[in-house]
């Protein structure tokens, strides 16, 4: 049995996870180096649980709560912005729908040149949008799904 072999086992033995063999005991009885190591290991075991523990400052909890509130506020802001955009888009659609209806039923009279100008504008915009139509469709679908999931979680929260 060598000092190095003893050295590898000291902590396991002191923790009760291993036991000294008779060879090891015989070595320990005569080796002052190993005895000193065992004593140091015992000192470490004695002191480890008594070492000073760092404590948080008195303002710690209020600091955490402020950060939680800030994070929640940011999330709400993002949600609000999304809603505002959605509401504006909805309003725009309603106005366009009502105007279209009024125009087709003859309630609004628009000059032929204005109609021609609008047709051209729609045609140009349509030609520009057409290639990206799948992208817009997917984006619209994702937005709808996102709002749907949000509505569902909010609803689930009310139920709880």
């Amino acid at each position, binding site marked *: 049995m060598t000092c190095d072999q003893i050295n590898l086992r000291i*902590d396991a033995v002191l923790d009760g996870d291993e036991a000294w063999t008779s060879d090891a005991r015989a070595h320990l009885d005569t080796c002052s180096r190993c005895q000193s190591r065992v004593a*140091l*290991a015992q000192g470490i075991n004695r002191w480890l649980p008594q*070492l000073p523990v760092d404590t*948080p400052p008195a303002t*710690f909890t209020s600091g*955490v709560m402020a*950060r939680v509130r800030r994070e929640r506020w940011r999330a709400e802001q993002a949600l609000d912005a999304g809603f505002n955009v959605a509401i504006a888009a909805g309003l725009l659609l309603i106005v366009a729908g009502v105007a279209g209806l009024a125009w087709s039923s003859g309630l609004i009279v628009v000059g032929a040149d204005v109609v021609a100008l609008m047709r051209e504008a729609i045609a140009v915009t349509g030609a520009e949008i057409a290639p990206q139509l799948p992208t817009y469709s997917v984006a619209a679908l994702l937005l709808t799904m996102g709002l749907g999931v949000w509505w569902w979680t909010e609803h689930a929260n009310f139920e709880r």
Partner: protein
Amino acid sequence: MSDTAERDLIARCRQGEDGAFRELVDQYKGLVFALVARTIRDPSRAEDLAQEVFLKIHRGLPYFRGDARLSTWIYRIVVNLCASERPSRDVPLDAGDEERPAWEPGGPDRAYGDVELRDRLDKAIRRLPAHYRVLVAGHYLRGMKYEDLAEALHLPMGTVKTHLHRAKRLLREMLEEPRPGSEQRTANSE
């Protein structure tokens, strides 16, 4: 805290009750702060990182299934956050520390020797590799059980014990008279 009280506190936190989360912070801030402060090298980052742990807890509570104890889950968050923290430059070792005489068991002035051992042990822990520091802090400084550490780290209990034995051997070697190679080993092990 009893299991029932803990479940009740978690349920109130999940309902968005700020007062309940404040209670949770007060309950666990000692554990979190002590672990973070012992695990990271730069003590000035301890408060910020410990607060970050609680933000992660706040975000994660809706997904906490309650399979493990809350303290075990929190310990895991601390370990992950400290591991992701970019290691800053090593804390400078106490100049002249290595020149001090080795600790002498049962020497003529044992009380003084013991106090000195405590101080040097305190410093030596900071030189351990991070994964040993967080284990030593959890088990010896905050009294966490082997099984809780094993569950938090997804390690067998035997491995946790082996890591703790190795950590203590490293500490011992740091406290012993400097021998060629021993300093290098601790410096290279991280």
